């Protein structure tokens, strides 16, 4: 239980302390003494304000303190919070055709999602959120023949994480997948960016025949780099490097063309981030356009990195799955983001309505009524005595 406005309770405690202190200050006849010149003392009430060792009117004091504390507690609005787990695991498990062994996925997911609050998002072309009976669901998980869509699975995982923020102090998202190239689309990076923490990646083996579906691309690479999907730049400049995956070719390239990236996947970029080569797939056909002029001078084309760059551009489509996995790995090791996200960072926790406020106010009213009765009874008793 916690207090939404503790300042009211603090004020009430202060007021109760003041009331208690006032009960120690009593009007009482001072001690008597003899003074032959007493006639020169002006006539006045023979009572004085003194500090008593014990509080006067203990019943009144208790009623007043109780009323003040109950009013303060009621205004402070005590609330109950649900019991929360330390960590809520949201496991995104791949059961698509890209997975070699779905049991490996189930085992990895089962090791992570072992808590009662954990959520499993099993996905292929569509995600399925499973929040109960996770062991049974994992045991019954079968591979499907559908192509996986990691973006949709991430969206479901983020929704599941948001809905589970009341059940745990922190939330961790784990992706168990081979992360094949066909599972990633243009929205994946943006969707992943919605999650404020790192995404833990557990890579499993990809299905062998998934490699078999990779097709040899048709590469359009004129020597001057003027492919059909590129248009001339307004200003020709020189770029000193070109990057594709982990291959970097450092050389002065004359950049004449600006390649069209509509409906294409960028496979190489100039060092300043401008796309330099794209890939378009249509069914089983794969076409690559490389708008990089082949250096005609120097020994650039003889260098190993250039050879590797050429190998990447002529490699089978989908072979850059490693680069996709590396990107996801970069998600996970992003040092700027915590591995677990505090649930409180997602939104304010849900407050459970508490009937205690009503009872506290009712108790305060009763205490005040009793205080009035006790005060009048004391006054009557004093008048009789």
């Amino acid at each position: 239980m916690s207090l939404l406005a503790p300042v009211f309770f603090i004020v009430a405690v202060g007021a109760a302390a003041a009331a208690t202190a006032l009960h120690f200050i009593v009007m009482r006849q001072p001690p008597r003494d003899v003074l032959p010149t007493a006639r020169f003392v002006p006539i006045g009430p023979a009572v004085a304000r003194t500090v008593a060792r014990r509080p006067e009117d203990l019943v009144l004091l208790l009623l007043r303190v109780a009323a003040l504390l109950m009013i303060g507690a009621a205004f402070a609005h005590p609330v109950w919070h649900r019991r929360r787990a330390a960590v809520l695991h949201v496991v995104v498990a791949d059961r698509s055709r890209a997975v070699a062994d779905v049991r490996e996925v189930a085992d990895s997911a089962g090791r992570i999602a072992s808590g009662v609050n954990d959520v499993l998002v099993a996905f292929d072309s569509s995600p399925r959120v499973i929040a109960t009976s996770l062991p049974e669901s994992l045991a019954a998980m079968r591979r499907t023949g559908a192509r996986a869509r990691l973006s949709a699975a991430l969206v479901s995982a983020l929704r599941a994480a948001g809905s589970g923020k009341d059940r745990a102090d922190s939330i961790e998202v784990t992706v168990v997948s081979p992360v094949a190239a066909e599972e990633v689309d243009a929205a994946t990076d943006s969707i992943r960016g919605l999650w404020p923490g790192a995404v833990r990646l557990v890579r499993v083996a990809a299905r062998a025949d998934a490699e078999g579906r990779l097709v040899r691309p048709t590469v359009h690479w004129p020597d001057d780099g003027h492919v059909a999907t590129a248009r001339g730049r307004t200003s020709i400049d020189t770029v000193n490097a070109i990057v594709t995956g982990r291959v970097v070719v450092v050389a002065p390239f004359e950049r004449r063309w600006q390649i069209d990236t509509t409906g294409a996947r960028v496979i190489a970029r100039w060092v300043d981030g401008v796309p330099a080569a794209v890939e378009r797939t249509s069914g089983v056909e794969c076409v690559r356009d490389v708008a990089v002029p082949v250096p005609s001078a120097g020994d650039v084309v003889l260098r190993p990195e250039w050879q590797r760059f050429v190998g990447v551009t002529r490699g089978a489509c989908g072979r850059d799955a490693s680069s996709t996995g590396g990107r996801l790995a970069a998600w996970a090791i992003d040092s700027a983001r915590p591995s677990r996200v505090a649930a409180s960072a997602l939104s304010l926790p849900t407050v459970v309505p508490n009937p205690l406020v009503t009872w506290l106010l009712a108790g305060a009213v009763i205490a005040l009524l009793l205080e009035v009765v006790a005060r009048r009874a004391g006054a009557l008793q004093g008048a009789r005595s």
Partner: protein
Amino acid sequence: MAASDVAALARVIDAVRGVRWSARRPVAPAAPGAHGSRRRGTAVEFTEYRPYRQGDDPRGLDWKLLARTDRAYVRLTDDHAVLPTTIVVDASLSMAYPLTTRAKWWMAARLALGFAAVAQASGDPVGVTVVAGDAIVGDVARTTRRGVVATIASMLAGILPGDGSRRDAPREIGGAGGRWVVVSDFLQADGAAVARARSATVLGGEVYAVHVVAHEELDPPRRALLVSDPEDPAVRRPLLGASRSAYLDAFGAWREQVREAWQSAGARYAMASTDEAADRVVRRVVRL
């Protein structure tokens, strides 16, 4: 009466040793003493000659001068007389304050004994009368007897202020001539004492009013008290923070009224606080 009380009283006798108390003006004819008398007497100290007039005592004629000059002159001399001193001490209940020490009473007793010692050392007959209200509760008749001071000390040490068990017949206090010393807190004074003092001074007497005030009366405790008058239990007043300052003002104004009343009656007034040394007060009073 404890021996320590007498010893405490007697310490003031040593403290005032050597102090003399001269009359402020020529005293009335009386037995030979140390004070100048208004009467031309028969003392050996020659003053002047005066022609003999009919009716003069022929024993005053200077016969040798008559034989030499054939003129009758009377030989005049200054006379010296004693100044009978009566000390009136107030032993009312208000003098038994504070209750634990009775400092006011002991101050009054020490003052009375000091005055008696000084007067007796000056050769004057001295007596002490202790009064409580209208009653005389102790009395030592005026005398020049050597042991009168010790007798007075014993009498004072045996008196309990406010104790009316030893009541003698009321006696008129005051009279023509002589020296009268009234040692009191004047809380019971109704004006009669001042009137008698006025009569005494008119008849050539000397009156001293010594106002004994307790230190606790001048500076009462600062804590809240419900004070009552020991002589009038119906008077019960709260002595609080605000009323304390009003009390101090009223008490100071009353003391001033008392001083003015006695001085207007021709008496010499002095106030003695209980935190003062009695011998200092005695020295101060005899120089008034």
